[in-house]
């Protein structure tokens, strides 16, 4: 299932887009968590493939990654699990580029395709280094979502939007993943700049912590990615039911903001 066309269709239907992030291999029931957030109204799901040294992630996702790795999660095992998911909405993986280049770009891209994964988000693979991966991903019909940061120049932003597939991931603040007390001022600015640069869906992520913040972010962006808030709930033992409850509250806030 194509990520971009699905998100575009949802946007055209008037929806604010909601993409939860779930760390692959976090608990034996992580695929049930994915099903739960889909049931709660997700438009796509980001599946994290944990890496030993996740420099873009704060303590919450670091802890989840470590727990998954300690439980034996590997890219192979997570993609094997993901293949069993038939949730009716597109899935994207979020991981770090060492795991991709270690496997080989072509092998990794083909493994994603074979597991039914539509997209890939690689936060440490910027525009200047994307060539080898982009060629492999394009050939395997894997959509590579590019990230734009608050300090990205206009010139780079245009190039990032042109190279991005699926959607454009607006990093809402200067910093790493993790919950914040309020929505950063930089969030709506980068969203409106990206919206002006592309017709692709623009989602804000990093620091979107509450349904209220998600609604506020979506006044400019097409939607949000919710990571640490959900992972914190899972680390507390919330399980699929807790995940469902949390994502349903985000869904309700986004739907009410129309």
């Amino acid at each position: 299932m194509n990520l971009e066309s699905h998100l575009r269709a949802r946007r055209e239907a008037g929806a604010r887009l909601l993409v939860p992030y779930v760390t692959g291999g976090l608990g034996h029931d992580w695929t049930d968590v994915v099903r739960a957030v889909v049931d709660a109204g997700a438009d796509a799901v980001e599946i994290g493939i944990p890496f030993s040294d996740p420099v873009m992630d704060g303590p919450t996702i670091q802890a989840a990654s470590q727990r998954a790795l300690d439980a034996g999660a590997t890219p192979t095992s997570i993609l094997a699990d993901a293949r069993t998911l038939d949730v009716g909405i597109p899935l994207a993986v979020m991981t770090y580029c060492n795991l991709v280049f270690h496997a080989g770009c072509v092998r990794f891209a083909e493994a994603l395709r074979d597991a039914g994964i539509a997209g890939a988000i690689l936060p440490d693979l910027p525009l200047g280094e994307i060539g080898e991966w982009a060629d492999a991903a394009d050939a395997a019909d894997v959509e590579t979502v590019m990230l734009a940061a608050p300090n990205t120049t206009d010139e780079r932003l245009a190039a990032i939007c042109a190279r991005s597939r699926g959607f454009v991931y607006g990093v809402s603040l200067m910093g790493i993943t993790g919950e914040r007390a309020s929505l950063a001022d930089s969030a709506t600015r980068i969203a409106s700049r990206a919206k002006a640069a592309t017709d692709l869906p623009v989602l804000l992520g990093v620091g979107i912590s509450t349904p209220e913040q998600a609604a506020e972010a979506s006044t400019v962006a097409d939607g949000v990615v919710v990571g640490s808030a959900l992972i914190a709930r899972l680390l507390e033992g919330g399980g699929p039911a807790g995940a469902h409850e949390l994502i349903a509250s985000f869904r309700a806030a986004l739907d009410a903001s129309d």
Partner: protein
Amino acid sequence: MTDLNVPARGRPVVLGAPGPEPTVRGRFEDFGGQFVPETLIPALEELEREFRAAWASDEFRAEFADLLTSYAGRPTPITECHNLSERLGVRVILKREDLTHTGSHKINNVLGQALLTKRMGKQRVIAETGAGQHGVATATACALFGLDCTVFMGAVDVERQALNVWRMQLLGAEVVPVQSGSRTLKDAVNDALRDWVATVESTHYCIGSVVGPHPYPWIVREFQRVVGDEARAQCLAALGADPDVVVACVGGGSNAIGTFTGFVDGPARLIGVEAGGLGIESGRHGASVARGVPGILHGARSLFLQDEAGQILEAHSISAGLDYPGVGPEHAALAAIGRAEYVSATDDVALEGFRLLSVCEGIVPALEPAHAIGWLARAVGDEVPLGSTVLVTLSGRGDKDAAQVAEILRQRDA
């Protein structure tokens, strides 16, 4: 700087010509690059721009040379080790980075990066440290220049290196114990990068080795090449020729690159000595060239110790300065093209080197270069022919390691 400064050894540092830039996108052969979050790209572009301009500027180079002379105590001498030479059957010459201010080559790089920080108008500096040598050097430069300094140090290392933690605090730095991952040097780099992603507009990240995203491996090599440029001129004056073999220890590889760069266009064999830890076969070591595979960590493509899935493994070494699961990209390139050779010395061999140099020459080496000394002592007659002339970079002094080595030897003798 004021005219009142008097060169420490009567003769000021003369910097060599700038070395070649890495190729497009910061590549050394297939290694290097800029694998970082988008947020860091503007800062890396600014740093590259500022360094290129500074390094071409006579004024900047003069200021750097003056600091190296009047503050760091350069040029450092070379010392011919007559006793050790007689014992081993090769002519051993040391490049004495142990005699610099703060006691290791790390000061060369931090003074250069502090000048860059000033030039960029930034007020805060962050750094990672393992044993604390780079942290102490960075805190020193920040004290000198009135910069705010935060040093990230693995919680395990904070406990092991209490004295250096106190030194950094005395110098005005904040030391942040890193609790993530293995809580050692690799994780200190991770947390420094995470801080930098949030503070990049006001903060300079002073990386301590020839690792990290472009332009760091290039910048740190250029600031450290004074070691090799001096050593080559000194060897030519003393020997009338290059040494046959040039040896340096390799963690991330900054003292080794600094040394090798002085000799790379000549005939000398270049040998990097990695941490063999408990033995390469034990799997508990820091030999990233010998046992690493190509990968991407801390912003660059290089050789890293990894498992089958590509997760980074923990390194092990008796020496915290070599306790890093990767190596700088230029070393990976020198190894790939065969211009430098990489060998390893175990913890035990390093301890032999530590004792040997102390006993023979009255020089207590840091545990890092003790790997190079220990390796050499065992390699004579084999990898190093009898009668060779060998330059070894003594990258730091052993005071920091005295308590640790005393404890190890006490336990062994018991």
